[in-house]
């Protein structure tokens, strides 16, 4: 009996995925139809809604964690693309320009490449620790995203101690780096892991101390409160209230994310690739995934703490009111009005617009065939609809505009991290430590004292007057 006589073995890889899915789908359909026909349907739906409503916290948490895990993927791809394109720009090179428009899909291809590569474990490695280390590093990075407020009302967790949670969980990645360094059974990995531990522990201190000033000013550890405290024009942002704190936080964040000029943990010209030397395949992918997500997280944190989070640099509400745009559009969705008329509009208007666009394209570019211009017109229509929808959302939903501002700031900072990498050489390990302990930590302490003293003076003057 050969392996091919088994029908399962004759399936291709795609078939092995699709066939069970189809069988499961048929089963679910039959079960649903049976439930519905037996008359239990409404009761089941009611029970489901009740259960979900009673445990709304858990449901919210599950959805939030899933979304957070999923959005790390485009974030990492964006950062990798920046890494390739901005460094190429500084180096006077072209950079990736073949896969996708302007090479934007090159990072996706990189991701697929590491997925397809061999996952290799060296002889003498501590296998469980070696396998777990990338997961620990990745999760420590991703879990910090849970408390980041992206926009008003758009966060996974609104913790009262969000700031402390961020530093506590962010510090966990040192454990992962040490695990990777020790378990790889490689001296370069060991050196990289120890460098990571020493550097991160040294820079944890100024990183935390630099935001104490903000906590004093705001009177809260809640990140949403900190952002709301910075609302108004850009002069209300913490970077203008706490310039020293912002500088210390940014430098320490660079070291914490082990980015150039503090990328000693994976200094390729000294210790090959540091803790990542022996990793390959998707484990290596996870290590670098974590690094690029970390860059975004640190940019996001800098944005939240110092650059006003989701707040626009200038209040544009008066402007919108002036043009009368801000008046909310209310669409009355009356079930009675959803008749054949609306159906006709939905069914007829998009094809008509597509056809008009196709004819226009055909007249403008006569060399294209009709099918091609039809496809392009359809894509254009979709872009138009999505753009209109987003514009409408931006005006009517507070958090879309907030998210837009937040992403602009955070991604701009990520790009700045990459620009630093393209420009600066690496700091030596003893100078890194010296800088943290001799300069950054005292400066952070001075910042705290000055802020506290100023607060006391202001408070006492207010009280006295």
């Amino acid at each position: 009996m050969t392996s091919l006589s088994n029908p399962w073995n004759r399936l291709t890889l795609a078939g092995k995925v699709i066939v069970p899915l189809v069988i499961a789908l048929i089963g679910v359909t039959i079960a649903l139809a049976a439930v519905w026909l037996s008359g239990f349907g409404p009761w089941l739906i009611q029970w489901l809604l009740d259960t979900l409503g009673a445990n709304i916290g858990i449901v919210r948490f599950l959805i939030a964690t899933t979304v957070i895990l999923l959005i790390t993927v485009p974030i990492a791809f964006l950062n990798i693309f920046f890494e390739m394109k901005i460094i190429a720009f500084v180096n006077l090179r072209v950079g990736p320009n073949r896969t996708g428009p302007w090479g934007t899909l090159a990072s996706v291809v990189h991701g697929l490449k590491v997925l397809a590569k061999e996952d290799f474990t060296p002889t003498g490695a501590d296998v469980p620790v070696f396998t777990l280390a990338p997961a620990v590093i990745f999760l420590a990075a991703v879990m910090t995203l849970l408390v980041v407020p992206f926009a008003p009302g758009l966060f996974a967790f609104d913790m009262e101690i969000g700031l402390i949670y961020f530093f506590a969980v962010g510090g966990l990645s040192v454990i992962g780096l040490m695990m990777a360094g020790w378990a790889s059974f490689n001296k370069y990995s060991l050196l990289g892991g120890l460098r990571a531990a020493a550097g991160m522990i040294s820079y944890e201190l100024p990183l935390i101390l630099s935001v104490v000033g903000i906590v004093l000013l705001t009177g809260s550890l809640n990140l949403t409160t900190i952002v709301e405290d910075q609302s108004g024009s850009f002069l209300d942002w913490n970077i203008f209230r706490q310039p020293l704190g912002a500088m210390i936080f940014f430098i320490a964040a660079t070291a914490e994310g082990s980015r150039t000029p503090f990328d000693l943990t994976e200094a390729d010209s000294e210790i090959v690739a540091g803790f990542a030397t022996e990793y390959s395949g998707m484990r290596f992918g996870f290590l670098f995934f974590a690094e690029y997500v970390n860059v975004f997280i640190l940019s996001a944190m800098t944005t939240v703490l110092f650059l006003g989070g989701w707040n626009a640099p200038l209040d544009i509400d008066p402007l919108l009111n002036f043009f009368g745009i801000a008046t909310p559009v209310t669409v009355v969705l009356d079930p009675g009005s959803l008749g054949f008329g609306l159906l006709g509009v939905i069914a007829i208007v998009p094809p008509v617009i597509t056809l008009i666009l196709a004819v226009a394209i055909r007249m403008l570019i006569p060399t294209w065939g009709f099918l091609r211009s039809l496809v392009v017109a359809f894509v254009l229509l979709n872009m138009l609809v999505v753009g209109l929808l987003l514009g409408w959302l931006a005006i009517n939903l507070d958090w879309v505009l907030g998210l837009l501002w937040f992403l602009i700031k955070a991604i701009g900072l990520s790009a700045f991290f990459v620009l630093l990498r393209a420009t600066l050489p690496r700091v030596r390990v003893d100078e890194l430590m010296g800088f943290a302990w001799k300069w950054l930590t005292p400066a952070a302490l001075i910042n705290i004292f000055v802020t506290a003293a100023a607060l006391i003076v202001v408070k006492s003057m207010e009280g006295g007057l």
Partner: protein
Amino acid sequence: MTEARTRIPSLDDPEIIVDTPATIYDAIPPYPPTTEREAEFYSLKDGEMLINLGPQHPSTHGVLRVVMKIDGEKVVDLDPVLGYLHRGVEKICENGDWHHAISNCDPLEYIASMFSEAMPVMVAEKLLDLEVPRRAEYIRVLAWELNRISSHALFIGWLALDLGAVTPILYGFIERDEIVEMLAALTGQKLLFNYLRIGGVNGDLNHEFLSRLGTWMSHAAQRIEDQQTLINENEIFIRRTRGLGVIDREMALKMCLSGPPLRATGIPYDVRRAHPYSVYPELEFDIPTRTEGDSWARYWLHLEEIKQSLRIIDQVLHRMPDGPVMTKLPRLLRVPPGRAWVAFESPRGQYGAYGISDGTDQPFRLRIHDPSYFNLQTVGLMMPGHLIADTMAIMSSLDPIMGGIDK
């Protein structure tokens, strides 16, 4: 018939070499210690470990292998292991005739091969007592100085790359690319030129070369200066190179240093001035020196030498005489018996060759004196006490080329 096969002990037998069967946790020296020095090096004190830097390390400039004994991040001792690129060039040269020696010596200094190929040429010319046409001499100087600039531009990029900066190497490659393109127009090759000939050069200057050279010369000085501002005034770069890998005058002379590492200690020894050859006595240029003897001084000297080379190229272009580029020589070149030593200044220091001819058309012996080899010897003096990160800054600043070291 059934008795077990007796093992014939051989030095290459791994079971003989390692007297106690080593586990994967032990550091294994490559061979049983044959000298006291090796025995001392491979016995570790408490807290020390051996780490193998190369031959496949990202920043050892080819296939150099350095076994380092480290205590934490600090380098206690080190043992460079050479020979991963050994091809026996000196022996190969004895098997071909003098013309073959040119192309055999080409890849020795593969970054600036216009220099290493000059070696058999100049030895043969000295033995033949040949008068090279003046135009050929000027073309040689032109090609040498262009190649020197391209090599130095790469040096600066490499040094910055080993310190963690990614951009200067690509800026260095911009200059190198243009020079390599123009030399390709002149010689037909981009890397191993095989352009110099006994008694002249292979082919006169052509239009493409001159037009490329003119375009490049019009902006070269300004652009090289602009590009260096990225690292010249960079605080991190200066802190990581200044006071690093210091070697003093006496030790530099004892260790037979030459080139920028020697001039960084304050000794203005440049073969182009000390023992003039070709048309260098007619040209005006300075020999920049520093007195610190550290990595920063070596970096600074490379920058200055680029400027001096540009000066030389400018004068060469203004004084280029007319005339032939080759002397008339017999097809079968029998070099008269004798011995000759030639020396000239390569980007890395004094390149020398000691040739012996027995009157046939083949060299009887061609001893190659490569500056990289002697410069690299000093890492053993410079490195102990520094950190692992500094080994790169020191090794890069000596600018070794493994092709010439391993020969």
